[in-house]
């Protein structure tokens, strides 16, 4: 009896050791090149910036956090980022649903269409930003030429805050909507046909079917997309850097560009780090809320 439990625990021990030998190398690497630097970043956020540049540390408590939170530029960047995140994700879902439902009908050429819609996913945000900057160019840009043809007034896109946002959001939609389309389509593929048919028999029209039958079933898929897109949209940097650089007049400054400038233009490492930790806190809180919502569903 005792011999048997002994042999089991030896086997169990062996299993455990095997598991650790598989996991340990990656964890060690992550510890050294991610979590130690992250800790260092936190130390920087509670230290004086000049001390950091000279490779030393001078504890200043939460001073950097307070000065960031009372910095009007940071608050503006936070506001801009929230505006951007809400606008782009809303539009991504609307366009995403329309295209996914169209693709779901499996008309001729669906496979080719699906492949085409996957293309922007592979394009670097920097390259996409440059492409859209060229498309939105003032005089020799094709978009303004088209608007001219249609008899519409073609704006100088990057001279005004509002039109700059249009350019950023259009470019971002081009980059990010394909993800929403493809994942929604995968979610639609997993729906039960019977429910839709039952709804059709009950005389529900298409719009009713969508809101009362399809949408509730897609909730897990929608949450997955929301978590991924929220964390991604909150950290937008490349597109804004290329398209507007945060301008005109700081009107399109987002959190990442604000922090980057604090660091590499003003050399305020402490404040930059404190701002980054505040952003991290926001992202964590949002993901936590989404995850909680998700586990309530299950």
């Amino acid at each position, binding site marked *: 009896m005792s011999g048997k439990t002994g042999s089991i625990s030896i086997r169990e021990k062996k299993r455990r050791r095997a598991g650790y030998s598989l996991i340990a190398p990656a964890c060690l*690497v*992550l510890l050294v090149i991610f979590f130690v630097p992250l800790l260092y970043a936190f130390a920087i956020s509670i230290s004086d910036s000049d001390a950091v540049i000279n490779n030393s540390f001078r504890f200043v408590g939460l001073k950097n956090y307070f000065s960031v939170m009372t910095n009007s530029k940071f608050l503006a960047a936070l506001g801009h980022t929230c505006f951007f995140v809400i606008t782009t994700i809303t539009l991504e879902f609307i366009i995403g649903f329309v295209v996914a439902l169209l693709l779901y009908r499996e008309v001729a050429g669906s496979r080719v269409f699906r492949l*085409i*819609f996957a293309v922007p996913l592979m394009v670097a*945000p920097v390259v996409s930003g440059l492409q859209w900057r060229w498309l939105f160019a003032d005089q020799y840009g094709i978009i303004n030429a088209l608007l001219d043809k249609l008899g519409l007034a073609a704006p100088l896109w990057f001279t005004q805050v509002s039109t700059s946002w249009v350019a950023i959001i259009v470019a971002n939609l081009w980059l990010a909507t394909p993800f929403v389309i493809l994942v929604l389509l995968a979610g639609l593929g997993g729906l039960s046909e019977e429910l839709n048919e039952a709804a059709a028999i009950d005389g529900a029209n298409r719009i009713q079917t969508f809101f009362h039958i399809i949408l509730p079933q897609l909730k897990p898929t929608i949450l997955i997309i929301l978590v991924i897109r929220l964390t991604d949209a909150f950290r937008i*940097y490349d597109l804004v850097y290329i398209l507007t650089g945060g301008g005109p007049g700081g009107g399109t400054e987002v959190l990442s560009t604000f922090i980057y400038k604090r660091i590499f233009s003003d050399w305020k*490492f402490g404040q930059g780090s404190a701002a*980054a930790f505040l952003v991290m806190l926001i992202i964590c809180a949002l993901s936590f809320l989404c995850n909680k919502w998700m586990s309530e569903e299950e």
Partner: protein
Amino acid sequence: MSRRKIMNSLVFLLLAIFSVVTLFPIIWTAITSLKTDVQMFAIPPDLLPHPATLSHYKEVITGNFPAYIRNSILVTFFSCAISLALGIPAAYGFAKYGTEKTKPVFAAVTAVRMVPPVAMVIPFFLIIRNIHLSDTLLGLIITYIPFELTLIIWMLKNFFGQIPREVEEAAELDGLSAWGILLKVVLPMSRSSVGVAGLMAFLFSWNEFMFALSLTSTKSAQTLTVGIAGYVTSFQTFWGSMSATGILFMIPAFILTFIFQKDLVKGLTAGAVKG
């Protein structure tokens, strides 16, 4: 019947319009890359290049482009290879040999995604400077590994978790160790998932910009993203060179996407789906 046909044609038409919108920026970049400098600035813009010229491609290839692409290839190759070599066993370990003790470790791994890259720019910049790896490929490779590694662990843990227990039990009876099972049994049957995980890691480093911008300063280590952004200066923008570089830039990503198209969605949502 005919109503259905009309609906289908309408759907086809709408999808075709969306496709044109999706492809147009890339097509326009390709057209621009073939135009002469004079033609590029025609008002209103000419739709097609005539005469088409390869001069921008020639400019790019004889310029800094070879250095940039060499750096991009080296950084991407080594960061992906190291991340896969570390990440595949770790994902397998978490999936099949997980205990109560490894749970918080896995949670920490997934938490990496919550950290915005800009938060890591400061410590990486200072550390890389202090160990004298500024403006080197090694500095970039080190920086990219944690992001790619966590992506790979995340995606593959879910996949490995779905492999039926019996497969491993049979192999265990044959006397294979955990590493033996992974290498001889599990890996051969997981090629497509490992491929997609590798593709995601590839895309991260191939397209990464912020770290490359802050950690490199000369063409000895600058990658393609930094190189192409350099065509836009405050004084002048070199649209021809930018377009030619952009087209060359996108080709490898397109080829890989085409190869992995079937498993792409699985890769994109991995990690968010609870395994």
